[in-house]
């Protein structure tokens, strides 16, 4: 635990995080000494204007981007100290990603898409199939096992993506605008699933969103602006 002031056991603990981008001769500071602690089992919506660093934060938490300085501890692992290959292995067992545009492989069926993270485990074919069926059952798509993404609606595709994110039972789900491409009612279905995953399965969820209605499904909402959290609001 990096934050001595925080009495909880955090899933995410960020201390003095700095992140800059260089664009030509210009250096853009995204985060300058950012601090954040999110406890296990939390469901946090991260909101803020475009360019505020929401997605960058998500990428740093998922170990797919590197900080310039500061410490990032997620699920007990100091990400800033891991090599690329260690980060890959760590992501496989600890993180589930959910993207705005689902990022499914169009040439694979729903089951094959969901199975992908399990290929990184030691599970045999039969166990993998069982887990895939369970995950698709959790998101209500047990009857769509052999369907290809193009044969499904946007909401169904996002539910397949959620099944893919949870199939290897990661502790942390990172969602980047998961309802950004969906209509209201479909978005509500997807958000309800996330809520169930948080409430019933204890998944810690960090969700980046522009949508205040979506943020209502989270336990609390963090507002990010110019690299700093300017507001913390308990939703539920």
């Amino acid at each position, binding site marked *: 635990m990096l934050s001595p002031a925080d009495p909880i056991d955090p899933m995410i603990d960020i201390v003095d995080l700095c992140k800059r981008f260089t664009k030509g001769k210009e250096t853009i500071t995204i985060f300058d000494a950012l601090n954040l602690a999110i406890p296990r089992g939390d469901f946090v919506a991260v909101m803020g204007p475009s360019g505020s660093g929401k997605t960058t934060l998500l990428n740093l938490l998922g170990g*797919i981007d590197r900080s310039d300085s500061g410490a990032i501890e997620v699920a007990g692992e100091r990400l800033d100290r891991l090599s690329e290959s260690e980060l*890959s292995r760590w*992501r496989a067992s600890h993180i589930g990603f959910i993207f705005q545009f689902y990022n499914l492989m169009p*040439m694979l069926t729903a089951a094959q898409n969901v199975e992908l993270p399990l*290929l*990184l485990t*030691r599970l045999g074919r039969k166990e993998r199939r069982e887990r895939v069926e369970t995950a698709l059952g959790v998101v209500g798509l047990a009857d769509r096992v052999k369907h290809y993404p193009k044969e499904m609606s946007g909401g169904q595709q996002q539910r397949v993506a959620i099944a893919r994110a949870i199939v290897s039972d990661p502790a942390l789900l990172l969602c980047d605008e998961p309802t950004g491409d969906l209509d209201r009612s479909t978005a509500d279905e997807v958000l309800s699933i996330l809520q169930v995953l948080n409430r019933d399965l204890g998944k810690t969820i960090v969700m980046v969103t522009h949508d205040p209605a979506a943020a209502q499904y989270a336990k609390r909402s963090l507002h990010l602006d110019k690299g700093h959290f300017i507001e913390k609001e308990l939703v539920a």
Partner: protein
Amino acid sequence: MRSIILQILAVTAINLKSLPQRLWLSLATVIAVGLVVTVLLAFLSMANGFRRTIADSGAEDIAVVLRSGAVSEINSVVLRDQVRLIEDGPGIARGPDGKPQTSGELYLTVNGIKRSTGTKASLPLRGLGPLGPGLRRGVVITAGRMFNPGTNEIIVGRALGKEFEGFELGQTVTFNSTRWSVVGIFAADGSVFESEIWADLPVLQSLFKRAGSVQTVRARLTSPAAIETLRAYSDNDPRLKLDVMSEAAYFAQQASNTSDLIQKLGWPLAIAMALGSLAGALNTMYSSVAARATEIATLRAIGFGGFSAFVGTLVESLILAAIGGVIGAAATYLVFDGFTASTMGASFSQVVFNFQLTPRLIGQGLLLALAVGLFGGLFPALRAARMPIVAGLYG
């Protein structure tokens, strides 16, 4: 390890299943590689066919005797006395009548007209003694009869008759202002002798003013090992300034120059084309990586390693190249295998031969195709492996 293999299989399957999305670009690479392999194999099968036609003509137990330093029959002279000394030499097989199994022979060139192009070409006219045909493997008269000694009659090799005009059975041809009748067509196991015209030696010696000498002596040996005895005999007799070698060695030497030349033309041309198709393969694979950037990044975000992205891309490139290679080899086989051609042999006369494609040559063609695939896929595969995940996900 199991996980890495599963990752590679998954990435490769994803890459291959997404090929229809890049159909035309992938097809262009396949065709480019196929053309490279076709050109290479056309040359190699030509060189191989030429080499085999000539090299397979030689036997180990037949000695060929030429003037010392002569590189081929056309520039050799063996005097009558030298012929007699060779006939009396050690290691020469003798017939039931006790006579040495030898044949002094003249090798001249005459003009003929190629059927395919209508152009003039030099054809070999061989004068040989009665034992001459028997010193060659598989010589049979397939039509007509053997020439009669002392007459202006010729028999024509089957391959030469097919490639050149005017040598049909019963036809009359003119060489050196003398008319000759075609009285027979002969086969010789597909060897180089099928590209020759044969006539009676004394008649040729008389009409071409070569009395008193021949150009080569062929002799049957008591065994293949007897070539050394005969060579030592020749080397130790100052009257015999001759080169003695087995017929097999002679033809191998004759074949190597031309087939080497064909190969030396074929490989650089194929490699130059391969470099062109390499550019195509690079373009295709870079496009493939760019088109799959989001997929690659997504897999990496899920936890797939960069190595699987590398191998998957490389395998895609190798498979495209291999398909091109197989198509090129199949095209060469269908178009060129068995294709008959003729070219200038070492004795400045035409040799008729068939293109011969062998599994070994096909292997060489496929190796070149895979080399194009390997180098065409290597750098795009590195890009796929090193691509920042964030860049792949968000562009």
